[in-house]
């Protein structure tokens, strides 16, 4: 071990420790889930294009046929409303008045065909019951974008 090599190892070790410390810092302060809102989709929907869409499941809009596994519901952010269709069983935490993020594409027939439904459970974004103000929806969208800390 020459002094030259010692310096090399010291500098290298410091670089690695700093990089890992930065990663752990970043990991603790997590970033958001990205999706577009129903009103953003309604403003500029391109048929056939893939999107990730997030919003609240409109109460009373869910129709599920357990025989054919056809699921229909609508997502809203208070301003826009997008009809969504999906084939499959809804996830556990999926429900009316709760937040959901769906992946899929906008169809020429005028509905969103979801290939994946992600429902998140948190007390923070219960449905803005009886309060259709846009502020309440904005709060819910923000809660939905937040990554659940583990």
């Amino acid at each position, binding site marked *: 071990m020459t002094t030259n090599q010692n310096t090399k190892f010291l500098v290298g070790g410091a670089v690695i420790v700093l990089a890992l410390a930065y*990663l752990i810092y970043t990991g603790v302060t997590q970033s958001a889930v990205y999706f577009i809102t129903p009103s953003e989709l309604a403003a500029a929907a391109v048929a056939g*294009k893939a999107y990730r869409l997030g919003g609240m499941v409109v109460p009373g809009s869910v129709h599920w046929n357990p025989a054919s596994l056809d699921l229909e519901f609508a997502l809203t952010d208070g301003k826009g409303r997008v009809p969504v269709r999906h084939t499959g069983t809804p996830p556990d935490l999926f429900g009316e008045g709760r937040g959901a993020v769906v992946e899929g594409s906008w169809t020429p027939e005028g509905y969103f065909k979801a290939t994946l439904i992600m429902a998140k459970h948190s007390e923070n974004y219960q449905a803005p019951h009886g309060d259709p103000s846009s502020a309440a929806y904005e709060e819910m969208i923000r809660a939905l974008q937040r990554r659940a800390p583990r």
Partner: protein
Amino acid sequence: MRFVRRAWILAWKDLTIEWRAKETLNSLFFFALLLIFLFQFALGPDRERLSAALPGLLWLGFILSGLLGLGRTFAGERDNDCWDGLRLAPGEKSAIYVGKLAGNLLLMLAVEAIFLLLFGVFFDLDLVAALPGLALVVGLGTLGLAAVGTLFAAMTAHVRARELLFPVLVLPVEVPVLLGTVKATEAVLLGEPLGSVAHWLKLLAVANVIYLTIGVLTFDVVLDG
């Protein structure tokens, strides 16, 4: 400066050999073409399923072709009995690592560019719009793959069953790189801003810094073995 020059000489040597024979590049090109046909057969004509699986497939192609190329990093030196030439080369041994890494990186990026082009044509991708983001993600991911691959290629060069051992060693290490690049590629292809995958880009950058540092620090040990 001498370090950079040494690394450059080695990379230049490897690239010149490759340019004259085009051995690796040709076979990897056909391999890419073959993979694309296989993907299409395996997934059928269902466009939606294809578009959902696309980022994963793209990286599967990069990884498979990358592993083939990386495994041959030291094939020339080994087969032509030039290994001692590498070992006895004067100066910092890590210059050899950096040179080999640079050569691998250029070759892999070339193959990936062809791969992307074929993907764009076959699966009807809007590559132009996604290109800046895609270049960043692919560059970060490829560096992570090449940094570990070059180090492990030297390590397995003289081990029996190296063709088997090499991918078995590289792939588990690459789990974070793979998850990050697939997720980031997905976001870029969906037209999302890069900010939405900033945490993945940070992870990839940190991974690259760590892999490169370990490679530079331990390469002389690996070369002596």
